[in-house]
């Protein structure tokens, strides 16, 4: 059998998977974005809407709507800011944690990794509801938080249904996706490199900044992509923990499909979101590409 045939056979299953679960849905969405909304939700039939200018029931009206009103692009920008903040906060929490796990004795590492993924064993919504209690007005957490900010002369403020609650929720939910790739990377570092650096005069900070950190960048990029992309499109967290002003692009998409029942406009939003996600995945893959053989 030629290697070409082998290649195609081997790449068959993943290609099929991508086709069924990615290419086809995106294709359907692209088509939907050019169609009219149906009177009672969904999509209008392709023919016979009665509009004399209509060409087979297709229109760019939903795209016009998206670009005409600045509010949608602003919502994108806001979601982008939340996703960036989430990624940065996840990185800040996950890096020390991953480093600690990677440098703990071999025996305890597996247990610690298990603890990181333990939350996955319970339902996502239950965990977010738990945060509603933690962030509630009467909770110890909220009182401690307000005590702390009060020490800096700030007025006490409710946490639940605020942007802070949304951010906390976003970071909480996505943290394991940052920890796992980072840990997988850090765990592979050769400890002899740190010995060598120290031997050659590097102090603890220089060893981290010149050796550990640059070598961990592929893990950082992978984790950043795994956090940033879902955080950009998430709707459950702002729905549950956010206030009226905490709507993100994910909520708008959900609203268009489920509440406003404007599928074409929902599709336009989804396409822009997917394009952004692909862009960031591509950037992460490019920065994280292995530089060594």
């Amino acid at each position, binding site marked *: 059998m030629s290697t070409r045939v082998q290649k195609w056979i081997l790449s068959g299953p993943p290609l099929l998977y991508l086709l069924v679960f990615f290419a086809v849905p995106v294709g359907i969405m692209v088509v939907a974005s050019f169609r009219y909304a149906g009177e009672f939700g969904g999509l209008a039939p392709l023919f016979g809407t009665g509009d004399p200018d209509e060409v087979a029931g297709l229109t760019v009206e939903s795209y016009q709507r998206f670009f005409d009103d600045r509010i949608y692009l602003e919502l994108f920008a806001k979601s982008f800011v939340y996703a960036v903040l989430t990624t940065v906060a996840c990185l800040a929490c996950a890096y020390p944690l991953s480093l600690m796990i990677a440098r703990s004795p071999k025996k305890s590492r597996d247990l610690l990794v298990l603890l990181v993924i333990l939350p996955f064993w319970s339902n996502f919504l239950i965990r977010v509801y738990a945060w509603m209690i933690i962030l509630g007005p009467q909770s110890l957490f909220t009182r401690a938080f307000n005590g702390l900010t009060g020490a800096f002369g700030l007025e006490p403020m409710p946490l639940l249904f605020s942007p802070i609650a949304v951010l906390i929720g976003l970071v909480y939910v996505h943290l394991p996706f940052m920890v796992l790739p980072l840990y997988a990377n850090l765990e592979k570092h050769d400890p002899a*490199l740190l010995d060598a650096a120290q031997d*050659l005069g590097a102090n603890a900070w220089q060893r981290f900044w010149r050796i550990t950190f640059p070598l961990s960048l592929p893990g950082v990029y992978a984790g950043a992509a795994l956090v940033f992309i879902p955080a950009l499109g998430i709707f459950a967290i702002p729905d549950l923990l956010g206030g009226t002003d905490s709507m993100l692009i994910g909520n708008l998409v959900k609203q268009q499909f489920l509440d406003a029942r404007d599928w074409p406009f929902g599709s336009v939003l989804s396409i822009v979101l997917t394009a952004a996600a692909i862009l960031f995945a591509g950037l992460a893959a490019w920065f994280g590409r292995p530089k060594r053989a």
Partner: protein
Amino acid sequence: MALLEIRNVTRRFGDFLAVDDVSLSIGTGEFFTLLGPSGCGKTTLLRMIAGFDAPDGGEIVLDGQSMTDVPPEARNIHTVFQSYALFPHMTVADNIAFPLRMAKCPAADITPRVKEALDDVSLAGMEKRFPHELSGGQRQRVAVARALISRPKLLLLDEPLAALDAKLKERMQLELITLQKEVGITFVYVTHDQEEALALSHRIAVMNKGRVEQLDDPPTIYSFPKNRFVADFIGECNLLDGTVASQAGDAMTLDVPGLGSVRIVGSPGGSPGAAGTLALRPEKVSIGRELPADCANRFHGRVFDYLYTGDVTLYIVEVEGGQRVEVMLPNSAVGRSSKFFEPGDGVQVGWRDDAGHFLPD
């Protein structure tokens, strides 16, 4: 005054003594080797000198200053690791410049010094390569250049040639000797390869089970091993156990069971009745149907087996009493491919009375 003083250094892991009361004094510009079998504590001792491990007892003094509370990064000691530990994300030039950058060397000085260091190890023009783009020997040179560039007082090398093939190893040995002479920096070299130790060192400390068994220059170590362990570990050696039968001046007779009496001259120690061992190098033993006239000790026997190694052949001869004696015969003495003896051939073996070295028990 010695550059490095190791005073009664001890290191325990649990109740296992990895380094047991070692004292050494190493001079400036010396090529000093720690030689010993696997697990004898060489790396442990080296790590304590570098500062990665602390002795449980004793003290390490560099240039008159106790190193007890000095962390590795502050010791003027650099190490060439067995795995080289080159930084994979840095080019050769950045790897070599690393110690200079850590020492806050002005940027303008770095480039010329890196270039000079690369010239020293004949890697000119390789600045931009990454470690994975180098051969084993080249990596080894980068590791040495990196460790030497900021001119430490002491360079530690932990089996730096162990990963190289025999040919390359030999070349790197020659390069290391030349380099050490050029830079004049003290080398402390760790190896379990006795040939390497003999070839490179000014002095060798032979270690066993955490202790130093003998500390001498290579010819002395080879010709006058202090005890059975050293004699056996360094090179091939016949160890003939016996009892001293008589002694007069610097001559003695040793009764070796299975062999007979052996005359030994020039080895101190041993009064009649004392047990001891004659250490006899195979290359000092003659073999033949006839023996040279100066062989004071002669025994008849049969060739039991032989080992052909190209330049020499090692014969194992079983003498009439049953004792086996190893004899080394250079193949230059024979034609191109023939051998002198086959297993079963009747031969004589013999050696001069000053050929061996007596080790009292």
